[in-house]
């Protein structure tokens, strides 16, 4: 079987790893090869995480700058490309301030703990064809379980700081992250139902074919599921308009008010890595993951992920923040029922023929959307009239 150049481009990382392992295999025992394979994958992830975070901050600042009609960072290096490194140096050299009454151990632990789940989630993200670090058959379950640990370090940090703003921020985080976990998990279910697997790789493979038209997003339940998942993902990684835990205008900096220097940078890093993995999972679940015509698979994956991240940044550049009760209401009264109905729609989809399925599921989703809007009048703006008098 003759393969084109795109196959080799596609497999460039996999082949490289295989080649190195093969080289090592000549003079190392088998168990060392397994170890070496593990080390290589984890080193790649450990390097990828911080680099992604650094350049995400730059990307965010650039994009928001452009949205606001300014350049964004452009002084350090060409197009400001060295800005993240300068920021890193600044963060490293800053004084590490610990409040006098803080619980010092927990205060120190929190930023360390928060990075761990953020990095662990990378394990199940399929970066490309055969490029999942660990192809767990319960990959999604692993992802959901690990990403929900994030609440703990945030709350640790907020509690240990002994600051009232931090405490409020921590309380908000606990409430917000727990609430948004539920619709997010439910929004994952349709994809699992359709692909009949929890493994991220299998989910991607089940979206093969038709030049990308088989992606789950091109179905009614797929759109609904994707929107719900993406909104929840935005809330999960504390991005605007759901950035209540660190609401600058209200709580100064929320849970990391009392953090400075590298500890603060770790919080920051975790936030951006979470944003990346959540967008990656969203792309995997509904946008066909690394599937796509012509280009190498990993390029497709990163392209889709960065597109989603750009949308998150776009949100940040446009939208004001929700209020606590509205945020909760949005999760429990809007996203949760929508996700449940979406599961129903997916179930029906599997049992009906194609045309009626389209019509029926669109109808059900539209009606339920309308019904939910009607039930949640607090989300709907009042119409007002403003008389002009002399």
């Amino acid at each position, binding site marked *: 079987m003759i393969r084109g150049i795109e196959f080799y481009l596609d497999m460039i990382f996999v082949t490289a790893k295989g080649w190195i392992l093969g080289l090592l295999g000549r003079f190392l025992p088998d168990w060392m090869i397994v170890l070496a394979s593990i080390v290589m994958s984890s080193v790649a992830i450990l390097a990828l995480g911080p680099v992604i975070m650094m350049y995400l901050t730059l990307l965010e600042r650039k*994009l928001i700058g*452009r*949205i*606001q*009609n*300014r*350049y964004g960072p*452009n002084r350090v290096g060409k197009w400001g490309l060295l800005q993240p490194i300068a920021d890193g140096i600044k963060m490293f050299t800053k004084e590490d301030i610990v409040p006098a009454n803080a619980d010092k151990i927990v205060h120190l632990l929190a930023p360390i703990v928060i990075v761990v789940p953020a990095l662990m989630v990378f394990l199940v993200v399929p970066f490309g064809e055969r490029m999942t670090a660990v192809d767990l058959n319960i990959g999604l379950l692993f992802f959901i379980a690990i990403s929900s640990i994030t609440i703990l370090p945030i709350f640790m940090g907020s509690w240990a700081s002994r600051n009232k703003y931090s405490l409020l921020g921590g309380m908000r985080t606990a409430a917000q992250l727990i609430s948004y976990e539920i619709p997010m998990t439910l929004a994952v279910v349709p994809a699992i139902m359709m692909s009949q697997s929890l493994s991220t790789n299998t989910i991607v493979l089940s979206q093969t074919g038709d030049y990308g038209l088989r992606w789950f997003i091109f179905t009614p339940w797929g759109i609904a599921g994707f929107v719900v998942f993406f909104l929840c993902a935005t809330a999960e990684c504390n991005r605007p308009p759901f950035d209540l835990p660190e609401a600058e205008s209200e709580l100064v900096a929320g849970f990391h008010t009392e953090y400075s220097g590298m500890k603060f940078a770790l919080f920051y890093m975790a936030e951006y890595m979470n944003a990346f993995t959540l967008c990656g999972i969203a792309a995997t679940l509904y946008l066909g993951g690394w599937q796509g015509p012509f280009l190498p698979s990993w390029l497709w994956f990163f392209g889709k992920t960065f597109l989603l991240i750009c949308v998150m940044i*776009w*949100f940040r*550049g*446009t*939208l004001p923040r929700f209020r606590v009760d509205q945020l909760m209401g949005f999760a429990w009264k809007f996203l949760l029922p929508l996700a449940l109905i979406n599961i129903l729609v997916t179930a029906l989809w599997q049992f009906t023929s194609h045309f009626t399925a389209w019509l029926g599921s669109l109808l059900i989703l*539209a009606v339920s*959307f*309308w019904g939910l*809007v009607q039930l949640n009048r607090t*989300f*709907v*703006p009042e119409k007002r009239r403003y008389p002009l008098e002399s």
Partner: protein
Amino acid sequence: MTFGMGVLKGMIVTFKNFAASYLCKRDEGGIFTVQYPEEREKAIENFRNFPFLVYDGTPEKLRCVACGICERECPPKCIYIVMEMDNARKPARKPAVFDVDYGLCMNCGICEEVCPFDSIFMDHDFEVTTLDSRTDLVRHKEALSRSNEYFQKIRPLFASAIDQKRKAAEEKKKTPPQNTGGQALQPPAAQGLP
């Protein structure tokens, strides 16, 4: 089903601005910031920053006669003047000390307005940062003196009007030749002193 349309519209607005920042020029919705040290805004003639003293020709020929009006009228009292005495212990109509504390000055332009000798004007130079605000921001006479050409350069319209006024006043002074002695030296505006 208009729910969500407001948010979408807003996002379209921001996207338009995002695109415009690449496509449009500064005045047409493009990037409106100025990259400061390399680019500069065009100088605006009436801009007033800190005061400076004008001399004609050489720095010794300051127009200032140390009358002290600006010192008295300055609202935050940032000007300090001492009249120079000549050998006969008479006022020499020249400042021996003329200090302006830029740390106190609030750029109101009142000294410029009240000066009857067209001597003190507001500068355009705003890059006056120093390391020590206590000592370095107090500018002495030497640092404050600028030539008339400099004044002409930064505020062409205003300076030429001032020059014309001064020329006219000088010619007027020359016309009555019978007026001799110390009185002829008296600048015309000095009679308006309180």
